[in-house]
């Protein structure tokens, strides 16, 4: 039986788009933003708030805010309505991220599926961003579940 969300067939969209890379961007990690982020979240561990600490690094989920502006691949179908809301994030911290680092990120469509909940029928579009440092080492992976109303 075909799954559908409006006029878009979810199974077809999944088959066509999952695994597609669609964005390539660079981000420079700003020391002041790292500290402000950690302090705003009540962080008390010196590694994240003291730039003089020998192991000073970004908060583990600091990369979750990195967005280049492109939300979907070119020609991606209009699935669901509205801009979408943030349904959740999974962060894998592979290596510490240091102040001043330049990270290159590649974004991929990781999954597309629909389900029903208290808010009605929703489509989940999962995007995966992989961040590498200047040496090519993978430092962070972020899976972002964008929820759109079907």
């Amino acid at each position, binding site marked *: 039986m075909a*799954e559908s969300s409006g006029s878009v067939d979810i199974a077809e969209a999944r088959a066509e788009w999952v695994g597609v890379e669609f964005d390539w961007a660079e981000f420079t990690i700003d020391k002041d933003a790292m500290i402000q982020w950690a302090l705003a979240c009540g962080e008390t561990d010196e590694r994240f708030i003291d730039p003089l600490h020998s192991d000073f690094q970004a908060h583990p989920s600091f990369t979750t805010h990195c967005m280049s502006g492109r939300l979907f691949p070119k020609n991606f179908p209009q699935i669901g309505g509205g801009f979408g809301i943030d349904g959740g994030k999974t962060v894998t911290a592979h290596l510490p991220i240091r102040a001043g680092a330049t990270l290159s990120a590649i974004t991929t469509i990781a999954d597309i599926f629909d*389900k*029903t909940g208290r808010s009605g*029928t929703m489509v989940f579009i999962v995007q995966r961003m992989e961040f590498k440092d200047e040496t090519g080492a993978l430092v962070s992976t972020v899976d972002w579940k964008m929820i759109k109303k079907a």
Partner: protein
Amino acid sequence: MILDLHTHSIKSDDGRAKVENYCKWIRKKEIPLDGFVLTEHRQYDSESDYRALEDEYNLLILKASEVETDYGHVLVFGVNEDLLHSFDFANIRLPIQTVLNAAKENGAFAAPCHPGRKRVGLFSHYELSGPISDVHTVEVFNGGSIPGEDELSVKQAAIHGYKGFGGSDSHVVSRIGYCATTFESDSITTVEGLVGELQSGSFGPISLRPEPKNTTTEP
């Protein structure tokens, strides 16, 4: 015996609990469960074999499904090959009558879960579309309910004369057993046995939610 009839593992898209960790948690926290049923979303997990865990932790671990219908979510116990070919478990717009009929014809037991919940609960659809005659049992205690939802479920179940059961709807380890079902029988060992006991109606819902701890501090 006491069974949690509604749990999710990492096999569900939003489940974060490994089945062995459920077992460890139950034993460590001395939760009075004799077992639990994995009701993965929009699928039936034919592959996983939990017999070794059952033996190690002396717990009954059964498998079922949670499917999505035009009258909200429905738990299906006793899924078999014939039932799997009766409808598409992944379809989020199944007609509830299709699910109820297919379950009945194939020796399974279907019962709406969290019926007091907005949009995905049976009773919110009753307001708009009227009752379904083939429903006889609903999950009145659900561990994921927000305040007011279970109260509505209990009230409406009484109005319609439905039998009630309980399930935690746990998606993380530490929430297993928040709600459960107590059976008069103490000899359920298979999913067929569970279906038989559900059909007999000799059970009731219980809440095992831990008392809130007053240990929070402002950092």
